[in-house]
């Protein structure tokens, strides 16, 4: 049984030392940040940022896509470009550490505004979980495999009431480097 086994058995385990607990905390923080960076990369439609969260030989199984993470990037960008905007909200993150590997389960509620068949936009929610395998190589954690599991969804006509063009003082989220988050961050922007 590993220290952080999420399917605990009744085997006797020694309590981890304080240093070990701090080390585990840092590893979990790094893994959780990858999940959040992935969501940011998707929502900003930023190929470079998506690529940064994966190891070079990583794989992805989104159901509708199964293959290498390298080829997942252009596939998902094409899917995203058919939509107007997305926001991937990450909830519960559970991480089970085992040395240089970690298994993660991260809940997501993804909001999408996309064109409907009659010319009006739809608002679609897809909710599920990312099942990630994180690996630490040369001291750096990245995603080695991601599987997406879908739990529930909801779709209806968009009820968006913002006239973006006439609300010049407001900051609106956009895809790509024009989004205000790029000037806000330095190193995280991937530039």
């Amino acid at each position, binding site marked *: 049984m590993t220290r952080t086994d999420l399917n605990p058995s009744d085997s006797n385990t020694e309590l981890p030392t304080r240093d070990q607990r701090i080390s585990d905390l*840092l590893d979990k923080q790094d893994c959780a940040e990858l999940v959040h960076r992935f969501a940011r990369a998707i929502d900003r439609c930023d190929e470079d940022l998506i690529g940064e969260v994966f190891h070079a030989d990583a794989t992805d199984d989104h159901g509708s896509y199964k293959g290498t993470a390298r080829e997942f990037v252009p596939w998902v960008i094409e899917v995203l470009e058919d939509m107007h905007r997305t926001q991937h*909200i990450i909830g519960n993150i559970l991480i089970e550490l085992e040395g240089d590997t970690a298994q993660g389960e991260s809940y997501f509620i993804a909001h999408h505004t996309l064109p409907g068949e009659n010319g009006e936009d739809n608002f679609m929610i897809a909710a599920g979980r990312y099942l990630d395998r994180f690996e630490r190589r040369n001291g750096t954690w990245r995603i080695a495999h991601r599987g997406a599991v879908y739990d529930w969804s909801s779709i209806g006509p968009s009820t968006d009431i*913002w006239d973006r063009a006439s609300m010049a003082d407001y900051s609106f989220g956009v895809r790509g480097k024009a989004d205000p988050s790029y000037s806000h961050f330095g190193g995280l922007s991937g530039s």
Partner: protein
Amino acid sequence: MSINTQVPDSTGDHLAIQQVLYRYSRGIDRCDQKTLKSVWWPSAKADYGNGEVDALAWSDEVLSALSSMLRTQHMLSNILIELSGDVAAVETYCRAYHEIDSDDGPLELEVGGRYLDRFERRNGEWRIAHRRYVLDWNRNTPSTAQWDSEFYSTLARRGKRKPDDPFYTGA
């Protein structure tokens, strides 16, 4: 095994920043002026879309607007933090639910957005020095809340504003 002492500090900074953000939500959703104001440094600026204003003065005004709504929930997630000494650039997703009264019955207004904050650490404490709010999506529909239905009526402990919320009363 000994750990570089600087690295656990970053975890402490992350947690402290996260707690300030969560206090913001409590302040807003419970209409708790003291808690809301505790997230800002004096002279902090906030731009929610109507230009940059004094964040402490804004806090007073927003609470009178919020308290006229039936209920709100500001759900925060995806907190990305870029630390640089005593300054941190932070992006936080917020999905804000508001239920308001209208002539046609209660409405649900939801807003998906992001807070782009500059946190500063002064005398060891992290607070927000500057906030810029970015709007991502919105959804506006007649409320479908069913508080009196057979299912929900058994779930009787309801969120309220300060000082009536169970958080304050302990009820």
